[in-house]
């Protein structure tokens, strides 16, 4: 009986995590669609967002400042990664690019351990975001609702940019056929760089808001990257809409699954990913290439 009554709260938890996951996954899937590179370091960028925000908070004590500044710092890291590392190995093929991002993820994780230590760090929330509210008889932490609000706003913004602006059209065109976009005279390497930067910005933002909620620690990158891979595979590599559906699905699977089969929630996740790869390698919404 207790399980049934906690379903609505758990479903809300799942929605919060799903939206957070989507913020990170959307950049990852777009980068894959366009460059053919699955960025292993994307989880590390998310982690950097959380740690940058922690440091800014330590220095200034202003959460809202860190919410603005930290994602831009992560964006710079991402653009440096693309321009000075990834682009250099592009000629060797996708396997090398994958290995490079894998190595960068490894290095960032070790650097984080050196700079901020192995133990989790505590991020203090501003007064207005701590505590909880009660609605419809459910008591719910304000901060999680804040995550939901921010991720929803960014989600709308991203859809507007992708589907209503010229830049969005170019990005979507480059995802589906970059040779053609190149032939039409657009600077495709520049589009890559900007897209990578945008993906890093999104990951960094998710890190800033996700850090206090999912514990800022050096393992947060390797924890989320697994969920991210599952999301992009299930949604279809390169599909933003697919990533949204898959993120919400994984969010629910984790939060509801934990009620019924706490031991096996993670097993189901991988099983789902394996089944999708075996029977529908292009995912729910992905296009066959």
């Amino acid at each position: 009986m207790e399980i049934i009554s906690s379903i609505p709260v758990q479903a809300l938890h799942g929605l919060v995590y799903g939206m957070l996951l989507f913020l990170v996954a959307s950049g990852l899937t777009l980068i894959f669609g366009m460059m053919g590179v699955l960025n292993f370091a994307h989880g590390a960028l998310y982690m950097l967002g959380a740690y940058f925000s922690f440091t800014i908070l330590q220095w200034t004590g202003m959460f809202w400042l860190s919410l603005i500044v930290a994602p831009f710092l992560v964006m710079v890291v991402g653009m440096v990664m693309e321009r000075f590392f990834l682009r250099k190995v592009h000629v060797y093929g996708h396997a090398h690019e994958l290995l490079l991002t894998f190595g960068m993820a490894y290095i960032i994780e070790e650097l984080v351990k050196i700079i901020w230590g192995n133990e989790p760090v505590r991020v203090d929330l501003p007064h207005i975001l701590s505590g909880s509210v009660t609605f419809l008889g459910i008591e719910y932490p304000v901060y999680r609702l804040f995550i939901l609000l921010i991720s929803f706003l960014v989600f709308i913004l991203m859809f507007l940019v992708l589907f209503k602006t010229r830049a969005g059209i170019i990005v979507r065109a480059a995802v589906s056929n970059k040779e053609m976009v190149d032939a039409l005279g657009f600077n495709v390497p520049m589009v890559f760089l900007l897209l990578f930067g945008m993906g890093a910005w999104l990951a960094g933002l998710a890190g800033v808001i996700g850090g206090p909620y999912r514990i800022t620690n050096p393992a947060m990158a390797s924890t989320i990257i697994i969920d991210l891979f599952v999301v992009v595979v299930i949604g279809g590599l390169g599909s933003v809409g697919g990533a949204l559906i898959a993120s919400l699905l994984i969010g629910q699977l984790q939060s509801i699954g934990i009620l019924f089969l706490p031991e096996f929630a993670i097993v189901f996740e991988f099983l789902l990913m394996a089944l999708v790869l075996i029977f529908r390698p292009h995912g729910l919404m992905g296009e066959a290439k």
Partner: protein
Amino acid sequence: MKRGRLISWAFFLMLMLLLVGLPFILSEYYLNLVITMIIYSLFALSYNILLGNAGLLSFGHAAYFGIGAYTSVILFKRLGVSLIPGILAGGVSGGLLGLLFGAFVVRLGGTYFALLTLAFNELIYAAAEKWRGLSGGEDGVAAMRPAFHIPGFGGIDMFPTKNWYYFVLVVVVLSAAFCWYFRKTPLGRLNECLRENEDRARFIGYNTYASKVVIYIISCFFAGIAGALAGAFQEFVTVTFINLDKAAEVLIMTFIGGSGTFWGPILGGCFLVYFNDLLSSMTEHWALIQGSIFVLLVMYAPQGLSGLIIQLKTRLCPTKQ
């Protein structure tokens, strides 16, 4: 050409002599380190059948290494199996798991292959972690390594490091010899052909799917043997034999050594084991240095250390080309 061959054989013989003589030169500590190097060389060799020869980037080879280790250690403990059958059972369990998963993964290529192997690795990891009755969960399983029985002769105690070293050496040299020979067999040739152009191989009439599954099984078998040796060596196996770090380790080893040559993975395995041991005694940030070397090699020497050596060789004696 003939002279080159002679040099290769001379080099090989000297290496063998050195390996046989090592227990008389090295201290106990370094002999243990060399055993680890030899075992990981085999693991990297098995991995390179996929990465180097087939061109398949796997993020899940630890699953087969781990199941080999668990199988042998559990058999030693529960059934009192003797040494050779235990190690072989480790290889066979790796091969069987390779058959089960290989049937699915070889259908895919590139990033999809990498992701599916990763997913299967995590499944096996989760199974080992949760199935406490068999695997001991996070506590792992411990078992003494049994003596080596020769029928009609008695047993050789495997407790002295020297004896164990020779046993591991023989098993790994035999396995490595098979891997070397495998590249010359029709199936080994086909493996490289599949990497270059799978469609063409299919048009010629090869059953590419079945061939890939068999190749995958062979690779997993030797990963299982390496795992069984590692488990028997440590006399203890935990989930760290299967986790993603282990899967990454073999990938890094093979890549650092160079996936383009036969001896590259051996070089990489020895280098990384030695290097990690050296660095971990000097600094706690050895993983950072290891990662940086890896990234530098990916960027500037895509053929790894063996590629660098070959480049150096051609530069020193350019006539040989």
